[in-house]
């Protein structure tokens, strides 16, 4: 070291000059690469949208039914009649059920891991929750159809008996629990890991000073969480939920395996029936002719737009709550 230091100092001006010049080149290359990547993403998104719109327009121009209000999917028939009303309803309802169940539980797990659990316990719990994300969705589907559906029969009867007056939980058909409600529970389990791990990361980033200040003022652990952790983490939890919602909206195989689909809108969520965009595409794609596939692509375009809308809405919510976001802390 000692011998090299002087030579380095001697050669310092030329080295730094050349370093500066390669640095600039590196900067330029890096800037170019990142700009290119950014543009590539936009190009990919745009070409997906163009492809979907083009194929969808072929189908929509020949549809004999109203695409938005028809309760039927007969795209391969002659004349073709198909509409997305049932699919839109089923997709939204099952996702709402999934979010209502998953978000509170995920926030609870995240808070437990980040603020309550001893370190030795926190790591394995976090690990196990993350593992849930690695289970392929068809496995959830098989588990749902063979285990969850029979197990939910009791819960369904209970809900029907005590909450039947709400209309929503009124079970009007006998039959196994292959309903949107069951699908919602299954989706909740599937989106739990993503919501949990993002929320956990956000909660761990709450400035130590805030928490210590609250503790110094005599706050209990719950008060610390309520006054400093939750407000700080709110936007993060919202983004985490939106990520989960994205998965719930697009989930295919698990829904197709568990749901007993029918082209009817039914407000009684314990009754079998309904359908979702992704489930319908998976079920119909195999036997559809070329026109039928275009029609399915049209329904896929609606799912694409729905996801864009959800993400846009999430951005708006987060932007409104900028004061609390991690960037300003």
């Amino acid at each position, binding site marked *: 070291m000692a011998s090299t230091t002087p030579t380095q100092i001697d050669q310092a001006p030329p080295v730094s000059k050349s370093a500066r010049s390669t640095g600039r080149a590196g900067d330029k290359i890096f800037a170019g690469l990142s700009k290119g990547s950014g543009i590539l993403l936009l190009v990919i998104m745009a070409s997906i949208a163009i492809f979907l719109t083009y194929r969808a327009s072929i189908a929509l121009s020949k549809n004999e039914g109203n695409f938005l209000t028809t309760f039927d999917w007969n795209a391969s028939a002659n004349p073709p009649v198909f509409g997305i009303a049932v699919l839109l309803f089923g997709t939204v309802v099952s996702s709402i059920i999934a979010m209502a169940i998953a978000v509170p539980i995920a926030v609870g797990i995240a808070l437990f891991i980040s603020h309550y659990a001893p370190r030795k316990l926190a790591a394995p719990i976090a690990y196990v929750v*993350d593992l849930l994300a690695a289970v392929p969705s068809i496995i959830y589907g098989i588990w749902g159809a063979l285990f969850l559906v029979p197990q939910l029969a009791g819960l369904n009867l209970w809900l029907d008996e005590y909450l039947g007056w709400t209309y929503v939980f009124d079970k009007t058909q006998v039959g196994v629990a292959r309903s949107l409600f069951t699908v919602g529970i299954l989706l909740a389990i599937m989106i739990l890991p993503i919501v949990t791990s993002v929320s956990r990361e956000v909660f*761990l980033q709450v400035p130590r000073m805030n928490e210590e200040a609250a503790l110094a003022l005599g706050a209990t652990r719950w008060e610390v969480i309520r006054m400093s952790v939750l407000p700080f983490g709110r936007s993060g939890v919202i983004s985490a939920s939106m990520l989960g919602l994205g998965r719930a909206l697009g989930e295919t195989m698990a829904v197709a395996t568990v749901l007993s689909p029918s082209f009817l809108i039914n407000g009684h969520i314990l009754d079998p029936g309904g359908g979702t965009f992704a489930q319908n595409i998976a*079920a119909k794609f195999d036997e559809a002719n070329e026109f039928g596939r275009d029609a399915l692509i049209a329904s896929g375009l609606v799912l694409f737009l729905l996801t864009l809308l959800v993400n846009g809405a999430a951005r708006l919510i987060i932007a409104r709550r900028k004061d609390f976001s991690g960037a300003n802390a």
Partner: protein
Amino acid sequence: MKLQRKNMLRASALGALVVSGALVLTACGSDDNTKDGGAASGKPSAAAAGDIKCGDAKGKLLASGSSAQKNAVDLWVKNYMAACSGVEVNYKSSSSGEGIVAFNQGTVGFAGSDSALKPEQVEESKKICTGGQGINLPMVGGPIALGFNVAGVDKLNLDAPTIANIFNDKIKKWDDEAIKKLNPGVTLPSTAIQAFHRSEDSGTTENLGKYLKAAAPEAWTYDAAKKWPAPGGLGATGSAGVATQVKQVDGSIGYFELSYASAQGIKTVDLNTGAAAPVKASAESASKAIAAAKIAGTGSDLALKLDYTTKAEGAYPIVLVTYEVVCDKGNKPETLATVKSFLNYTASDAGQKVLSENGYAPIPAEINTKVREVINSLS
């Protein structure tokens, strides 16, 4: 913080491992089927190599279509490739619709289909078959069984109108008068009937629909289609899915290929066709019903018109006949020899014998003779 990050990394690495492992496994699964004969790979091959005439067959033959005949084709392919070295036949089991689309795009040598080509599909096929058109060759038959699961009931007789009314939600309890009348001496519970049908479009649904429309036109007013037409009932994915639901749910009834019933030990309905005794679903009884079929196609097209109202003793008329779709003229020169040689084997006595040994129904001799004639005339 650091600890958590590391764990996340580890978890995702493990997740990636699991996922890629699953991908590798599934990839193996679909590739190996063509070589090892899939589910039935353990059974000894019925054909001696001497029965298979390889002719000028060479290279690779792609085919695609109906999953209903998948197990039969897998066995044929296995026997055929063992006899003819240097030939590879690859049957992609997808669906009838997909098979016909692939055929009309010219990407496969032949397609397997649960239902005969529709006029517009024949029209389309003329582009691929230069100077000819697509034709249907009946190759595999099979009974569609009605599986039931009713506590305390081991044997159940039903006729077409009753089946129709069960599946269109008019008969709701197992102790309904109509069912009681057909089953004297059987104590039927007052359990609600849960009818299961296919939730995705399916040739099995279409064939059951054809039977019900022909045999019980007053009770079943729907046109036969791949999509389930009737109200009520519950949907499940695939024949396997319907069979699993029937196995699981008390008071249920569903329809699927006979092999699914035997595989899961599900009891099947004996059909009251008007013959002296109710008929049990079996390869043999289905073959008897197919024997009553007439050829509806013209020229070399051998599309069948099944007689669903047959009262022949021991004939079970809820059957599915699957076709191989080929060009009568204008087959691609590079695959023509292989198509002829392979289909010659499947239609041969040895090839048809494979069927009855595996829960399928052979095509009756009279029709089969014509099939062989047409195969030899392919060009």
